[in-house]
């Protein structure tokens, strides 16, 4: 085990968190006023943490690259947030949410963390309702639920198809209340360029003001990184254009171990790529799989005719369609977890059954749902003997009420009406389960440096279930960090303000300035996007939905060569004094070029298939993932040693005391 101490509290699983909270140190209210905390990133995890820490009395500084905290990419989460409320009385419980999450993560997450997540999940809903988050309700006035993939209960709370937006605006509102009280100072259009360590502890950051170009020093007694995931290493993903790994990677370079970089979620239901100009991909919420049925033509010649525009999907008879998820996984059907659904789509398309002009798309069809809802609506509104037209009309209204914004989004992008013709979807990079290694207290391997939300690695194992990211972000921010960080800060009540004129700050600032100058000094052959797109192609082709040793090895070499080319030849117009979006992108891509290589190395080291990590060499005869618990039941935590190829692997053995390890089956 060596230097990785997960600090999981002793005692029975269900009591660990309560016991831990009862025994950790607290900081008295007067002392909190003398302690500064830096929070980088203002999404669900960062926004919630900042608001709560400020409310407790700490002085908080928040940083985001966006022009407002409200624009963090949590805002784009669509479908919902899980909580073990059991409002539906369908057998849900903390244990079941815990169990589903560990199983969904293919037994590669930490039991104690996941149980805590399930335990605080119900509080999140209470909290958000108190804040005025307008969750969907039933006619009786109580909260409504829907189902998400990989589970057999309805535990997902939602606000139309904009759940992330509403939860983030809740956290943003909580932040605003503290900004108004002067307890949070919000720095927008600021990017963290480096972490500053003093005597081995995280004591501040170097930030760049993206408007003026000024390099700033900010000190604090602890630094929280809530900066999201690194899906943009693939260039095309559902992440925002600005989403990046810089803060986490800078911390990694300063000593924070990076865990499981190869665990990436490829989401099954995204709008397919339309051409080379494509800058990002758009998700169609997993909630659509509650009502949509996924299919491709049974016969290859029909698929070809559809691709050539000679046949319309609606012309294909029921018996000529292959509802392949329902066929392969009868128990979970269209609601299998994301990794399973994505691989199944790829399998059909690779076999020649794909439906759009690129051959990389499958149908998500709402005709059956429209009919079902239409009939029900006709009955409840007292229309008997309704004809087909009336049923379809009523059914469309119900579907619109549930998913209207998603259907509109689809129509604007694809220029087809999804109420009339089935949606076309294909998997796309969406979320990264890997991230900074943290212990039970969410502290990284750097003392005083914490990581929360998607930026850490702890709760989702090798695959995240739908509607669990929002849950984890808010759990970390509202309910976990405020306790665990207090325990650490209780040692700092006599420290006083951390000065920013120390040699450590000088050195960190010099590093940042040198790096910017080096970027600006490139020979000027190719734009930043040129390199980013090349990196994305390597990642998608060789480190994507399925991987093998040969291609991973090639990826490592190609990324390494591309990185050298980038530093030599990148072209950044303008100057570093003032706003320069190309320079911002360049800094982020430079870090992706290092992370990408470590990603491939991690995938090459893990000789098994689990969750989102599918190695072609390790599969069953039926093409399902083949895990190797004997040799790989650990989290990989990488230590920075210069070049990614020199990174050193540390293993955190995962201990399962409450759940029996089984082959994950959704059949």
């Amino acid at each position, binding site marked *: 085990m060596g230097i990785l101490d997960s600090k999981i509290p002793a005692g029975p699983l269900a009591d660990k968190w309560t016991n831990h909270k009862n025994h950790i140190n607290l900081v008295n209210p007067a002392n909190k006023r003398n302690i500064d905390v830096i929070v980088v990133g203002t999404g669900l995890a960062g926004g919630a943490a900042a608001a709560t820490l400020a409310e407790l009395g700490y002085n908080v500084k928040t940083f985001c690259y966006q022009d407002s905290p409200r624009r963090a990419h949590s805002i784009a989460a669509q479908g919902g947030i899980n909580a073990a409320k059991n409002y539906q009385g369908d057998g849900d419980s903390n244990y079941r949410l815990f169990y589903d999450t560990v199983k969904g993560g293919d037994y590669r997450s930490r039991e104690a963390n996941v149980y805590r997540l399930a335990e605080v999940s119900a509080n999140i809903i209470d909290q958000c309702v108190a804040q*005025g988050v307008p969750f969907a309700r039933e006619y009786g006035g109580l909260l409504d639920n829907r189902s998400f993939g990989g589970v057999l209960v309805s535990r997902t709370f939602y606000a139309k198809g904009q759940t992330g937006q509403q939860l983030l605006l809740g956290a943003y509102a909580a932040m605003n209340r503290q900004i108004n009280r002067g307890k949070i100072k919000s720095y927008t259009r600021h990017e963290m360029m480096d972490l500053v360590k003093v005597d081995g502890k995280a004591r501040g950051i170097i930030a760049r003001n993206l408007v003026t170009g000024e390099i700033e020093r900010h000190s604090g007694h602890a630094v929280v990184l809530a900066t999201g995931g690194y899906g943009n290493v693939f260039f095309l993903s559902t992440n925002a254009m600005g989403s990046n790994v810089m803060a986490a990677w800078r911390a990694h370079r300063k000593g924070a171990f990076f865990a499981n970089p190869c665990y990436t979620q490829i989401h099954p239901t995204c709008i397919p790529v339309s051409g080379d100009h494509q800058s990002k991909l758009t998700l169609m919420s997993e909630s659509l799989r509650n009502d949509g049925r996924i299919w491709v033509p049974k016969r290859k010649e029909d698929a070809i005719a559809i691709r050539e525009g000679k046949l319309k999907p609606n012309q294909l008879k029921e018996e000529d369609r292959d509802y392949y998820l329902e066929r392969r996984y009868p128990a979970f059907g269209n609601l299998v977890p994301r990794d399973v659904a994505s691989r199944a789509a790829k399998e059909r398309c690779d076999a020649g059954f794909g439906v759009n002009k690129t051959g990389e798309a499958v149908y998500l069809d709402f005709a059956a749902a429209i009919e079902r809802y239409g009939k029900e609506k006709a009955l409840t509104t007292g229309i008997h003997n309704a004809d087909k037209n009336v049923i379809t009309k009523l059914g469309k209204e119900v579907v619109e009420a549930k998913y209207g914004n998603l259907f509109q989004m689809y129509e604007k992008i694809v*220029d087809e009406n999804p109420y009339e013709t089935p949606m076309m979807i294909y998997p796309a990079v969406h979320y990264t389960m890997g991230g900074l290694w943290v212990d039970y207290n969410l502290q990284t391997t750097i003392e005083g440096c914490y990581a929360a939300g998607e930026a850490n690695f702890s709760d989702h194992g090798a695959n995240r279930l739908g509607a669990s990211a929002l849950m984890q972000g808010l759990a970390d921010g509202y309910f976990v960090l405020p306790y665990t960080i207090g325990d650490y800060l209780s040692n700092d009540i006599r420290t006083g303000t951390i000065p920013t004129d120390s040699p450590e700050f000088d050195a960190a600032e010099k590093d940042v300035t040198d790096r910017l100058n080096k970027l600006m000094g490139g020979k000027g052959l190719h734009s930043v996007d040129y390199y980013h797109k090349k990196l994305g192609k390597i990642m998608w082709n060789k480190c994507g939905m399925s991987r093998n040793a040969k291609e991973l090895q090639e990826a490592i070499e190609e990324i390494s060569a591309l990185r050298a080319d980038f530093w030599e030849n990148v072209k950044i117009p303008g100057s570093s004094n003032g706003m320069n979006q190309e320079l911002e992108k360049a800094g982020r891509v430079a870090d992706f070029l290092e992370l990408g290589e470590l990603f491939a190395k991690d995938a090459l080291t893990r000789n098994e298939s689990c969750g989102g990590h599918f190695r072609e060499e390790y599969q069953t005869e039926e093409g399902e993932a083949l895990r190797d618990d004997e040799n790989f039941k650990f989290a990989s935590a990488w230590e920075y040693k210069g070049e990614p190829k020199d990174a050193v692997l540390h293993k955190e053995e995962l201990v399962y005391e409450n759940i029996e390890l089984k082959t994950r089956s959704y059949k």
Partner: protein
Amino acid sequence: MKLTLKIWRQKDASSKGKMVDYSLNGVEGDMSFLEMLDVLNEELINKGEEPVEFDHDCREGICGTCSLQINGEPHGPDRLVTTCQLHMRKFKDGDTIVIEPFRAKAFPVIKDLIVDRSSFDRIQQAGGYISVNTSGNTVDANAIPINKHAADEAMDAATCIGCGACVAACKNASAMLFTSAKVSQFALLPQGQVEATERVQNMVRQMDLEGFGNCTNTGACEIECPKGISLENIARLNREYYSSSLKG
């Protein structure tokens, strides 16, 4: 298609800006408007010129970062979309497109097409919240039943993305639609009643301090709003404001 673009270029907040013409070939209908600008920027960079800076992030119409006054309309000619969701199939070969930043005193230009909308944040900071602690120790979520119709209406108001199109569309550069969306969300929910008086007073005061203009009920904001925020919210804001003034 081939397009002529007339784009506002401005080095920084203190410099004087001007319109600059660019011609762009090879634009496809499936491109989003911002992807069209990406193509232009790639050309400019390769020619050694400075690219056009514009705000954008999620590119799926929800973060509210993108802006742009396109042919005189915020977010361009299509309805109920942001600029990032506007597709080039809405234009035709040979078109001239005029691209400017959102114009309002309370949204000063930072560079090229980028404006500073932090005035919106300050309006929210003045009262756009319910003062509950984030401890989680509140009542059970289902202890507060809320009429579905009210909850749905609150949700409709809450979908505002804070992009500023309402201000850019308004001849008075008024922020009434933006402010009223938040006031309405809370006015429609029982949780929002406790602080209703202070909230509306504080938010309206801040809105005026920021230099936004008055509302003259023209309704351009509602038409240009990419999220379809209804003018009814302004009526509700006025109601809340006057009744709170009487209580005040």
